């Protein structure tokens, strides 16, 4: 019996249990047929996630030039989801903008880019944080030693989603049995960590930003995750109750 | 097979002469509003959407729940009188009574369903872990049975093969009995609260039963006036007249009960009960009390009933309407006023924010939306039935 996307989501949220690769039960493995993966879309989304991850990092010169260099390639994405193509201010303006929005302002941080801050009492490392660290490690990743950040930083989460999609695509042709764990991780990160953040996060950006760049990219991020259900249904090839017509 | 369909068809017709469309439309609008409220509760959570607080945990929805379900049991009581005690004038109304009681009860259940944080948990916990010392359990049990009986009654009175009057009489009697039990237990949910002296005692169980009957009679008077466009046919005159008298009697008892409740709460100023009564008489709820309760639920309907001499059905209908509006305030006022005296004084550091030593509560937009859901459900379902079902019962 194949699982619908909705019931898959429910399962993920109902069972906050360890998803160790190779340890899934039969029900889960049979829930998905890897041949249904829309590889091209997966690659596109992977790149969008990665690009968004770059955007929500501190714009060092290297990051800035990556953002600037690839902006054109994501024109469609930003027009569709952000309502406009973001205008990239000069790096000397973007850096202070990033700091004042996401790192430190006068005594506080307006739009903390940490998933934890949008769950519980607004402090870092709230309850789900350790589960996140576990998901990342079990998916075979960890934070690079040079990165002094928390795992639930938006940029890390987005990069992680990007990497998971990459794994899905790369291992799609192999007989790897861990693909379902990848999907579980991808959906859980998207729905448990990123989605609860986007509304409040973008609201805060809108009230504190001096340039449009993070307003537009924030809006794109928000719309993308509001639109996550049908995207994942289409991309992963799941049956959906509510979006059946799309599969037609 | 075909006879069955034929039989069923005999129950259905399109009543074009009953003015149902405006009510169905109004019901639909309220329902939509209500569903928006439901969505808000689901997405934002009870605490964010409702205005009830730590110190005033029970707000509008408890009042509207009581409003609906007690009216429903009042209807069942009248129906029971018709079926079981041979009040033939009421038997003519039996279909509408049963249908109305059923729908109003459903509307009441929407209110409590949305009020409870975990309505689904309730369903199985009542089975596996009921606390029989809790009045809510008995209230729940009796209202559950009431719904069942009303459902069965519906089947019986809408039996295309004709009503089994004997069965109907038994069920009507049971509905009456269980309804009284349910309502008085609902009263005891408040009457059991020693912490809230205004609630505590026999007043509320008694008052609810009496006011419920008046409410049922009012609703019937109003609906018959609407259905027959203020020109109720002669065949119902007896019934209407009798309803008017019943309602008048009940209002009389209500005045009696309320009077002594107030006097006993004022006499020598028994602390919290006194505060609650002052809230009503001259405090934040005084307009509700004097206009809503006293004028619209007691004085005006009684005056109108007397003026109608139990003959002028239109005037009795008007009395019913004012009573139903007044009854809403009566339910709301009682529940809110009882919670106005804080359990701890609002001193610095207590966490209790009192104004002039009293708590405050204002229903939130979300709570009004849920009320709209109940009201909408009733209007929508009932007038849909009016439009498509044959509701005139013949006297047996």
């Amino acid at each position: 019996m194949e699982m619908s996307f909705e019931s898959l989501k429910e399962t993920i949220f109902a069972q906050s249990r360890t998803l160790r690769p190779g340890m899934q039960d039969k029900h889960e493995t049979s829930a998905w047929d890897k041949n249904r993966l829309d590889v091209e879309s997966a690659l596109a989304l992977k790149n969008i996630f990665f690009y968004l991850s770059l955007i929500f990092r501190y714009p060092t010169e290297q990051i800035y030039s990556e953002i600037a260099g690839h902006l054109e390639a994501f024109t469609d994405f930003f027009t569709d989801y952000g309502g406009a193509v973001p205008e990239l201010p000069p790096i000397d303006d973007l850096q202070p903008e990033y700091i004042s929005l996401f790192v430190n302002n006068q005594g506080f941080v307006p739009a903390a880019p940490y998933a934890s801050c949008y769950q519980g009492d607004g402090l870092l490392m709230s309850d789900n944080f350790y589960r996140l660290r576990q998901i990342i490690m079990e998916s075979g990743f960890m934070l690079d030693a040079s990165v002094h950040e928390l795992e639930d930083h938006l940029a890390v989460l987005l990069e992680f989603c990007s990497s998971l999609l990459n794994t899905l695509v790369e291992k799609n042709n192999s007989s790897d049995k861990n693909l379902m764990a990848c999907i579980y991780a991808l959906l859980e990160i998207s729905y448990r960590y990123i989605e609860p953040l986007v509304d409040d996060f973008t609201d805060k950006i809108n009230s504190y930003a001096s340039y449009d760049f993070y307003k537009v990219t924030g809006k794109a991020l928000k719309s993308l995750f509001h639109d996550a259900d049908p995207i994942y249904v289409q991309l992963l090839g799941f049956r959906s109750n509510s979006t059946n017509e799309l599969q037609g | 097979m075909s006879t069955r369909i034929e039989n069923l068809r005999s129950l259905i017709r399109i009543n074009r002469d009953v003015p149902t469309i405006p009510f169905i439309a109004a019901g639909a609008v309220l329902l939509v509003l209500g569903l928006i409220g439901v969505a808000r509760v689901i997405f934002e959570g009870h605490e964010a959407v409702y205005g009830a607080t730590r110190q005033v945990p029970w707000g509008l929805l408890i009042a509207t729940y009581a409003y609906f379900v007690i009216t429903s049991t009042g209807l069942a009581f009248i129906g029971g009188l018709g079926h079981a005690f041979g009040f033939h004038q009421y038997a003519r109304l039996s279909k509408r009574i049963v249908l109305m009681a059923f729908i109003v009860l459903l509307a009441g259940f929407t209110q409590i369903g949305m009020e409870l944080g975990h309505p689904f948990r309730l369903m199985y916990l009542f089975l596996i872990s009921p606390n029989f010392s809790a009045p809510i359990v008995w209230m729940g049990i009796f209202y559950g049975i009431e719904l069942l009986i009303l459902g069965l009654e519906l089947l019986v009175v809408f039996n295309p093969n004709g009503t089994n009057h004997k069965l109907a009489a038994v069920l009507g009697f049971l509905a009456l009995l269980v309804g009284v039990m349910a309502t008085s237990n609902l009263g005891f949910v408040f009457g059991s609260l020693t912490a809230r002296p205004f609630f505590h005692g026999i007043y509320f169980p008694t008052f609810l039963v009496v006011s419920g009957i008046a409410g049922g009679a009012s609703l019937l008077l109003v609906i018959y006036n609407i259905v027959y466009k203020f020109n109720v046919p002669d065949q119902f005159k007896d019934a209407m007249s009798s309803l008017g008298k019943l309602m008048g009697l009940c209002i009389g008892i209500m005045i009696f009960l309320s009077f002594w409740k107030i006097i006993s709460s004022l006499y020598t100023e028994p602390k919290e009960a006194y505060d609650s009564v002052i809230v009503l008489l001259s405090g934040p709820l005084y307009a509700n009390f004097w206009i809503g309760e006293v004028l619209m639920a007691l004085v005006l309907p009684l005056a109108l009933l007397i003026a109608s001499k139990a003959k002028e059905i239109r005037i009795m209908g008007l009395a019913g309407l004012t009573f139903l509006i007044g009854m809403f305030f009566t339910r709301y006022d009682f529940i809110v006023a009882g919670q106005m005296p804080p359990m701890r004084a609002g001193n610095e550091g207590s966490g209790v924010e009192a104004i002039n030593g009293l708590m405050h509560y204002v229903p939130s937009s979300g709570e009004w939306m849920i009320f709209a859901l109940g009201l909408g459900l009733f209007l929508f379902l009932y007038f849909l039935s009016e439009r498509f079902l044959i509701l005139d019962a013949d006297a047996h």
Partner: protein
Amino acid sequence: MKKKLMSRRKFLGLSSSAIAGALFGPNLNMLTAAPTDPFDYSILPKGTREYIASNCAMCVNKCGIIGEVVNGKLHKINPNPRHVKSRGMLCAKGNAGVSLPYSPDRLKTPLLRTGKRGEGKWKEISWDEAFKYVAKNLADLKQKYENRSSVAFASTEGFQEEFYYYLVNSFGSLNTVRHTTLCLSTNIQGWSSVFGSFPDADLANAEYVLMLGSDRAQALITPDSVDFQRYKPKGQKLIVLDPRFTETGAKADRWYPIKPRTDQGFVLAMINVIISENLYDHKFVETYTHGFEELKELVAEYTPEWAEKKCEIAADEIRKTAREFADHAPRSVIYPGRRSSFYSHEVYVRQTFAILAAICGCWDTKGAVVPKSSIKLASHDVMFPFFNLTRDRVDREAVNLVKDVVPSAVQCPMIGTGLPDDSCAFLSEKDGSWITFREAVLQDDPYPVRGFFCFKQNPVQSVPNVKKTMKMLEKMEFICVIEQQMSDTAWYADIVLPHSTYLESWDPAHSIGGIWPIVEMRQPVIKPLFDTKTMFEISGGIIHEMLKIPSLWDDIDPVDLVDFKKNVVEDILDKPIQDYIKHQLVNHPGAYKQLLKEGFYTVDGGRPTYGKTLKPGFRFKSKTGKIELFNERYKEFGLFPLPKYCEPEILPDPGQYRFLVGRTAWNTHTSTQNNPYLWEIQKENAVWLNTGEAKKKGIVDGEYVRIKSKIGEQRIKAYVTEKIRPDCVFYVNGWGRKSPGMSRAYKSGASEAEIIDDVLDTISGGVCMHETFVTIKKA
């Protein structure tokens, strides 16, 4: 609906972005492959619970804590039940410390200003860049002004402060300003003028406690706040004198609403009674004190009847108090307290307190005022180079500064009251005097100070008259702030360096003196969350960069430099801090282990020792070696040698109130108001106004009012109460913040720095926070 959804998702089908992705540059990943595959699950913290002992740093008390760490996250801070100083308690602030490392508002990385000062434009820099930047600026200032003291260093107490001084001494500035003159410098000076040191009170064993102006129930000090109630024996009496009915007043057997600025008169009258009724401790006075006859002569005129007119407390009450005090001696305590930055003659007030204790023999014995004992730690014998280009402190060199520019010199005439009018008589070398220092900087007298280095101090909020502080900061060519949060001061800095919280850092061992002396240390309770460093690491980093700049070392003997590199840099700063700590504890075997386990260390089970100073041959730190009721050094300096009553010559105009400040038990000065768990206790401050006065002005409780002084105006809620004298108003400090980011404290309530005038006590250099008069109007 369908169509719209599809069109919005067209990127999925298009390949442009897919191709673009392949072109992302290398080395962009924040995530790398996990070390083992298959992954070793045992390293994940799961279901672990650890208890780690350390010490609190939410205020100055350093109470014992035990962090309860669940799965690597700090769940709760519990009090250490065995801790000798904090007696197993932990206050609201200590408990709320849990949220400190987890606050998203904390500083996470070094920030360099790119816009104008205070404009809020920052860029992120690495620690290496930060160290280079700081070192270069220090070098530039030294070159430009040919004076190392052209950079001033502000700091406040804390275990890491000693490493800050490694930096200060390596650079060679003498201009250091600490918090002391905002707090208790007058107290230290006054008591030391009599006993040669600043003692503690043995409240656990006292039978009679007289507290003037101390609110131990709210301004918590361990162990005093614990002892004065928890161990209150049967029959113990507590007498509280305070213009406000404080929480401490509520605990008192008698509360006297004394008229502000007249405490000295009350105590002088007590001395008068005790001497004239022959109630003093003759033997003690004879054996240990100097100048009794002079004292007797002085106080002869200070009768209770005289004092009644000053303090507005009935003469009989004063007499009764004096007799009771003498009756319970030596188990009587006149409580020294802590913050004493009250009035311009405060040193004499405190001297009077000390004299009362002395003549009753309430000294160094159980239940009396007792000199601090301390456990000696091994010190690192560090020789810093001698720098030629170092000038003396500005607040010392600036001659006549006090009289010329400090308003207090005019407002509270000094001449004839025994207060110096040229400079601060007994300025502490290390602490300096905030007001004088700021004034000297503003005047460029005697030389320009153009660099400001600030370690965990927030002068913008904590030093009275914020306008002057801002002007001072404007003068600076270089401002560096080391902080945990973007404080009001950090916001105006050029570079901000993030310091680790006390729960994430190793702090050196620290000997805390007192009746119950202990040694404390901190170990990390949790792993650091961000790229923050401790002062130990920051000093090391900056000093290493300084060593790369030859111009910084051209005014010293090259041999000194070699020694410095070896002894300071290589042997201390380059080594793990644990080595430093172990060396500190070298004379106390087992102490290091004990500190790791318990967070504190005591000798002899922490039992108090009494009577060290009463042994024959003991010399008090005074000119005569005795307890000086008559201070010989004050005489030399032209000060009153005896505590002559200092009449306030400037009185409030009608309609004015004396402004008082104080604290609550749930906030530390200006640093904790943004903590959500403390903010919810009190969301803004309110000005206390006597019921009668409020009625006259038609002000009702909870209404907003404007409070105005000579230097500023604030809007604040009125708290109309019987709990304050009609001639005073009061609010707690720490509110009405400049930073919109102190999102909770911003624009709620009123700031004290905005309205308190910069009045100076010229003996110790302390500020006088209760010398400001205000008017109140409906807002």
